[in-house]
């Protein structure tokens, strides 16, 4: 039972707006209301719990895919660099990722970068890299900076010229 906070004797004169209050529940919480509330809380709790577990599994799958992307880039280029950047398709939410990394040793994005597009399922810890492009040093992966597109990226005109 959730009792109301007792009003101070001195505050009676200052009571505003309402001179009476619901008396039916002041001393006893209605059981049906509490039961309905508890049922709704349990249902909402279950929904949140299922959504949370589902999201953890989704994120785990995404990390699995990102690892395959990074492994594939290292395999194709022969460079075991750690500082690679991965962009995901945040517009149409496909599993097409782009991995970019330096073509020679240096800090992140300090050298000419080679970007590979990654598509398809993870097979033996790797994905398909059907195309890509180059970026000048210190440039972000934006269409205006891309050059020397190859493979599928060239067919899809991913480079400005």
């Amino acid at each position, binding site marked *: *039972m*959730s*009792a*109301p*906070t007792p*009003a*101070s004797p*001195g*505050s009676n*004169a*200052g*009571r*505003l*707006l*309402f001179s009476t*209050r*619901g008396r*039916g*529940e*002041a*001393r006893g*919480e*209605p059981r049906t*209301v509490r039961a309905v*509330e*508890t049922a709704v*809380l349990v249902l909402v*709790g279950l*929904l*949140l*719990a*299922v*959504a*949370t*577990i*589902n*999201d*953890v599994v*989704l*994120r*785990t799958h995404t*990390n*699995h895919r*990102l*690892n395959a992307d*990074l492994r594939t880039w290292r395999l194709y280029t022969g460079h075991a660099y750690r500082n690679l950047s991965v962009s995901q398709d945040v517009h149409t*939410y496909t599993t097409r990722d782009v991995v970019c990394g330096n073509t020679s040793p240096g800090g992140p994005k300090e050298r000419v970068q080679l970007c590979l597009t990654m598509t398809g399922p993870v097979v033996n810890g790797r994905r398909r890299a059907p195309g890509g492009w180059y970026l000048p040093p210190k440039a972000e992966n934006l269409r205006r900076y891309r050059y020397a597109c190859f493979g599928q990226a060239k067919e899809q005109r991913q480079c400005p010229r």
Partner: protein
Amino acid sequence: MSVAAQSALGVPRARSHRWAPALAGACALVAVAATAEIVLDGAIGHSLLIPKSPSIAGWLPNIGERLGFRVFLIAIIAFTLAYGGVLALARSFTPRAAVALIGALHLIVFAGPILLSTDVFSYIAYARMGVEHGLNPYLHGPSAISADPVFHYVGQDWKHTATAYGPLYTLLSYPLAPLGLRGALWGMKIVALLASAVTLVLTWRCARERRHDPVFAILAVGANPLYVIYTVGGAHNDLIMLALMMAAVSLTLARRDGAAAAAVTAGALVKVTVAVLLPFMFIARRSRAQLVGAAAVVAIVAVAAYAAFGVHGLDVFAALKRDAAFVSTDSFPTEIAHLFGKPGVFPIDHDLLKVALVVIVVHLLWRTWRGYDWIAASGWTLLAISVTSTWLLAWYIVWPLPLAVIARDRRLLAATLAVQAMFIVHQTAPLFVPVS
């Protein structure tokens, strides 16, 4: 009533199981060790979890490695499990032992670097904008002071964003601005520590007033992993809001309605969210003094804010509206959207969430009108705000906790802890498949 509560109220303590104190001590040690691990690794330097910061924790022993997701997640899971044990065995803690545990956790975090958030640098940037550069933080983002040393440390997403905090907080932060970057950072950490101490003292007092176990109450708040690591660790100004919120509750329980309404209004002028307590307080007490207290604080702060910031400092709801449009990957609406195969939340979802929140608040107001505990109703509202928010951060789900431990409806505490547990579970994905 638990043994600790009996002790606090002058009732002789009963004997508990022999193994319980040892197990409780072990849980406390795990919590302290996990916190120390996070802080010591964090002190080594910037990582994905530790924001770039002036070196303030360089005096800590240089052991371990930079804090990465794996160590952090294992430590936070260990801390959470230990916290569960501490709560289950709260009867084994004497008041002194509980205070010692909470004090140790707070001091470890205080001694270390800023954890998991760049917000404190935004606070300092806004203060320095006003004091050192003569700029209005309600009109400009930190990018307006890009030559200032603090600008380098402000989070990327917030460099162009004007302050979202209330004018009272902005004015309170001004005296720290002339202390330099490190001085201001330590100042922010001290303020966070003191605000947490005030919150816990008032939580103790309110729990005792309501015949709850005060030891359990302060352990549930002060040894909570989200409270210690994320909120105190990040020196968040939410702690000032919580201290004022608990001051309002304590004053209401002491039947000082005017001062209580003034305190919660002051809290709302630090961070506007806490204003949700006001209607529940009014309905529960219905005192003219409440209106007078709230109006007096609004008038005083409004005059000061107008003098300092012009009309822009008075529109505390504009920033709230702006933040409500943000979306974070940890928010429950985003998780539910993913569950139903949607890539994220859309404008229609924002509208539906607002409707859901209004329905919940109206129901709680009706329940309070019918005699339901106003403290519990306020706590449910804060919990509903964090669950329906598309922009959820760890310290937001700490808001209802001090109310939950003193509320007469124990479902609130169970729901708050369950939501916090789900938040922590949601963080664990990198543990299963780390990105290499």
